[in-house]
């Protein structure tokens, strides 16, 4: 198991390197450069000088080698739109996205798994009605669902603030407890939106996984032995239907991170997604490249954790 984990870690580092290469060339090969965004206000001479200063006049291969050596030393470049180092902008944004994403991911798995198990175990009208409702949420565009939640809870019924992570003016002057409440209040709607929009997918997979396990021999044996229906479903069946869910968790991560991009946009949550959308609009090349790489690294770390979880719940993987 230990060796396996080390091997996986090595692979992940190689993958991160490949992703960085892909992201670099995809971004640098685009027409124009970071300065063409401001082209109207820059004279050709100034522009040429800036291109030279930041190395955009060099052949792409040289730029790539320079980029690699900079990244190896922890320098991800300069962000023109933020006016700071890319690493500083990332350090600010990543924790915010992780907070939003981890809470929503935990909630959507908890609720989604419970729903899927209940659907598969009960069947009948409960299964049909809830499947219909879940399919509706599964088919809803993320941004549209989030916009509806935003409209209902911030403008029709003014329960929650409409965006940002804390109150931009008052937060500094709040007492500790008030500041904490302020934080939580700003977190509720984005987390709720992300949860509602992702749990449908989880529940669909969990339902299918349970339906595959429930007809098994060992379930019939346990039932014959007199195990209560409740323990049968939640202990015997769910434990065996949990393994594919861990795989699903790993596979869902990239899409989940994609979902946070839309939620962050709707709720003006200044995390990685907002950083990425702002960066592409401003042709902020280094920042765009970095957001893709960081997104991939988050997914890779998530996959490693999923692997550990897999080993924890399935003894066959451990040996």
């Amino acid at each position, binding site marked *: 198991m230990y060796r396996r984990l080390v091997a996986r870690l090595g*692979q992940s580092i*190689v*993958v991160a390197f*490949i*992703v960085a290469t*892909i*992201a670099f060339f*995809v*971004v640098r090969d*685009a*027409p*124009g450069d970071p300065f063409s965004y401001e082209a109207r206000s820059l004279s050709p001479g100034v522009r040429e000088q800036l291109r030279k200063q930041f190395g955009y006049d060099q052949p792409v291969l040289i730029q790539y080698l320079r980029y690699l050596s900079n990244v190896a030393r922890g320098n991800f470049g300069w962000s023109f739109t933020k006016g700071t180092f890319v690493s500083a902008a990332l350090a600010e944004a990543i924790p915010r996205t992780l907070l939003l994403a981890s809470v929503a991911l935990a909630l959507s798995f908890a609720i989604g798994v419970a729903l899927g198990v209940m659907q598969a175990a009960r*069947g009948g009208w409960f*299964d*049909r009605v809830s499947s219909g409702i879940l*399919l*509706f949420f*599964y*088919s*809803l*565009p*993320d*941004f*549209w669902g989030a*916009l509806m939640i935003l409209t209902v809870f911030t403008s029709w019924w003014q329960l929650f603030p409409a965006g940002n992570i804390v109150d931009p003016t008052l937060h500094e002057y709040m007492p500790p407890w008030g500041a904490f409440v302020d934080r939580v209040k700003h977190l509720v709607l984005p987390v709720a939106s992300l949860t509602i929009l992702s749990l449908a997918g989880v529940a669909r997979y969990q339902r*299918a*996984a349970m*339906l*595959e396990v*429930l*007809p098994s021999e060992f379930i019939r044996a346990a039932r014959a032995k007199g195990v209560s229906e409740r323990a049968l479903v939640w202990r015997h069946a769910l434990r065996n239907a949990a393994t594919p869910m861990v795989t699903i968790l790993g*596979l869902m991560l*990239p*899409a989940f*991170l*994609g*979902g946070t*991009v*839309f939620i962050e*946009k709707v709720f003006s949550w200044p995390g990685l997604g907002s950083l*990425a*959308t702002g960066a*592409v*609009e401003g*042709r902020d090349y280094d920042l*765009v490249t970095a*957001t*893709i790489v960081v*997104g*991939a690294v988050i*997914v*890779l770390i998530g*996959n490693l954790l999923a692997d550990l979880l897999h080993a924890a719940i399935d003894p066959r993987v451990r040996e």
Partner: protein
Amino acid sequence: MTGRVPRSGSLASRLLRRPAARWSLVVIALLVLAAVVGPPLWKYSPTEQPNIVGLKNAPPSHAHPFGTDAVSRDLLSRVLSGARISLGISALAVALAVTVGTAYGLVAGYVGGRLDTSMMRILDAFLSIPRVLLLIALATLWKPMPFWEVAILIGATGWLGVSRLVRAETLAMRHATFVEAAQALGASTPRTLWRHILPNIAAPVIVFATLAVGNVILLESGLSYLGAGTSPPTASWGAIFYDGMDSSSSAWWVLLFPGMAILVTVLAFNTLGDALRDVLDPRGSPTTR
């Protein structure tokens, strides 16, 4: 509902016995029909601006059943022509993704060994890139993009799931008796793959493709919402929605109708996909209980 469906008859008749499948097929047929014959039949063109001052953000009326947008364009005609773009992008992207993904998965699963291992490693690398982040970067930095380029972009980043699926199915089938029999009779590798393996793995691929259509429509509308979709004036449903964002507080119809078009279409394809899965691939469906 599903418990009573008998497991006999041809595929089509088994599918059509399900009300959900019937309804989703009707909706999809109507949508395709509207996309094909709608724009030339409706009296307004999607880019015509009849009266920028007088008809700005006009609410739904007899003349304009879906209302008009901020520059007085008729929303019904924009949603109809948007159907062409959205459905067109989706069909093209899914066709591309399924073709590439199936080919990749077939080769990896059939050849196996070290080729399979390295092909799967490459796949893992691609799978770790969050698709939305990559797509907004590509679609914004390479703007303006005609709709078929957006379709190719979405298709080219969407084949990973199919190839995993196809590889797993091929791997399971590689040593099946009928495959070994075909090989023993001297069938070439391409013929074995094409005539013997492909038809037997078609069912899950068809289910996947149907669900993918809905997914791509969602993805494309999301990209458009971020301003990274097709270039104007050709507007997909997502782009119409994006255009309507500025006037949304006073004119709900500019968001409602394109949004409904997306929702109904995706819902129809997902319902059809679920029904197809129950019919084609009974594992994990209530009928096996």
